[in-house]
């Protein structure tokens, strides 16, 4: 928290990520396979960060690949997976089943409430639905509180103050103003509740351009900005590009197989590529450009999902 008043926060990706410590409580922006902070995730892996406690709503390859690389100790997401299309998250599943990570699965509403407690400066907030759910068994830290008006017993949850929120945006300026397209998912709440926000943007624009597009997350909440084209790939970052379903499929197959196949994927796309530039080159300019062709026609858009 405490506002970030520096007027130029533009740094390179390496430096932005270097400020994140082992063991940090990290909020991941975006959701499902949209606007995930993948360049930041890849850089965390390249830098060999470990012991992270990740929090978020419904996520996919970002969390799974962090787990596959042994970067995560505690996972407090509401969902990790690839929906019906590609199924369960292989590394998450394996780590949970073998006990190599601690699963503190939570509920979107509870996470929202905990972020709000931090954002509102309150030491607790009440939620209701957790009472009927075994999710509560995963959270011995929850307490109870009795409503002084109705006598209803509610579950009390503590504030959630991430050390850092990792957010990818289509556009931002050097001061740190970010423009996002909807859905913002929890990004606005993460930004207000977290001590630091590290953002990557598809493109750095002028302050005027960002203001005209609309500031979704204001500069005073943001600690660093790095310009990383295709920084959400293989997730989508509309309007720039749709998600790369084929790449996600390739990952899920490798991660499901595990062992050498997974190692090969990780080496090929992550540890084997020292920079995002190298990653983009490997994925291929043609492939990346194709993901941007969704806007040409409905048929072109549909074709990306076949």
């Amino acid at each position: 928290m405490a506002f970030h008043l520096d007027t130029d926060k533009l740094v390179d990706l390496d430096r932005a990520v270097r400020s994140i410590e082992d063991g940090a409580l990290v909020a991941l922006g975006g959701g499902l396979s949209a606007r995930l902070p993948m360049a930041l995730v890849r850089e965390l892996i390249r830098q060999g960060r470990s012991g992270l406690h990740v929090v978020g709503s419904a996520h996919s390859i970002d969390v799974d690949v962090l787990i596959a690389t042994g970067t995560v100790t505690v996972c407090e997401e509401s969902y990790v997976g690839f929906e019906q299309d590609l199924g369960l998250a292989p590394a998450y599943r394996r780590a949970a089943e073998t006990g190599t990570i601690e699963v503190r699965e939570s509920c979107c509403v509870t996470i929202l409430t905990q972020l709000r407690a931090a954002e509102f400066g309150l030491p607790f907030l009440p939620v209701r639905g957790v009472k009927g759910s075994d999710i509560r068994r995963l959270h011995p830290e929850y307490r109870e509180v009795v409503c002084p008006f109705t006598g209803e017993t509610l579950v009390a949850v503590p504030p959630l103050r991430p050390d850092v929120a990792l957010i990818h945006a289509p556009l931002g300026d050097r001061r740190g103003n970010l423009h996002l397209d909807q859905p913002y998912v929890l990004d606005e709440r993460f930004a207000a509740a977290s001590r630091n926000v590290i953002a990557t943007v598809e493109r750095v624009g002028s302050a005027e351009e960002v203001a005209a597009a609309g500031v979704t997350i204001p500069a005073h909440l943001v600690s660093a900005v790095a310009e990383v084209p295709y920084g959400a790939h293989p997730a989508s970052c509309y309007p720039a590009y749709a998600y790369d379903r084929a790449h996600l499929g390739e990952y899920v197959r490798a991660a499901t197989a595990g062992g050498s196949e997974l190692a090969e994927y990780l080496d090929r796309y992550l540890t084997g590529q020292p920079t995002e530039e190298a990653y983009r080159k490997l994925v291929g300019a043609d492939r990346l450009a194709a993901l941007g062709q969704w806007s040409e026609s409905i048929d072109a858009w549909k074709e990306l999902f076949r």
Partner: protein
Amino acid sequence: MSARAKSNEQCFSIDEWFVVALARTIRDREVVFHGFGSPCAQVAMHVARHSHARDMMLVEGATYSINPEPPFIPPTGNDLALEQGASYRMRFEEFFDAAIRGDVDRMFLSGGQIDRYGNTNVTAVGPLERPKVKLGGGGGGCNLAATIGHLSLWTTRHRSGRTLVEHCDFITDMGHRTPAGSRAELGFAGGGPEWLVTELGVFDFDDGGQARLRQLFPDVSVDTVRAATGFEVQVASDLRSVPLPSSAEIAALRAVDPLGVRRSEFAPEELRRTFSHGQSVGCAC
């Protein structure tokens, strides 16, 4: 519409009939939401809005857009296609707040396990400390299930025998009653599960909050349902066949889901089940 297309709508497969059965759990003028990773429910909502529930309010499951007219349903729930033509796009918290305060009338929920009270497990099969299968997780379901007006549950994996169970290994989202108590005892305003639609038939819930078989697909027997169900199957006295989909419903469904993402929920062998309006089983078209 060509004669060929019209003829095709006389003939439909289980995924299509199933989605229409789901759609019919929606009443007109309801505010309805589906969770992500739920293509059958998602398609069903669009079918309902283009057939019997034109004045419903449809809230997309991961974009929180209202009444969009997507050019197609994509295989991922957080995609711009699902915002096209929307009259409004809610913020994440705007939707969840509305649902928690009771302004959302219906939600679709599924589960890797579902018990007789409509409790659902999307967290883990087997012991929690060392699960046999770690499922994806519940998203926002745990709180939403407490306050949303009605729940339409569904599964496309009833026949597996592993889905409708005596006891959920883990209760992610509450149905009518858990070991912690009933909804009334916990002070939950939401009405809980109203329907449970499976690829074998349709259940409602009795006054005690227990599932009761109301309708069967015509190629399914009560014995098949009993064999596939881990709890004792109550059968309604007026058990009947699942009502046939209309041509308009089938047309709406095919228009909104040209990629067939709904089919990803079914085992391949189920998808061979086809039907027609003339004959109830084994359509040859």
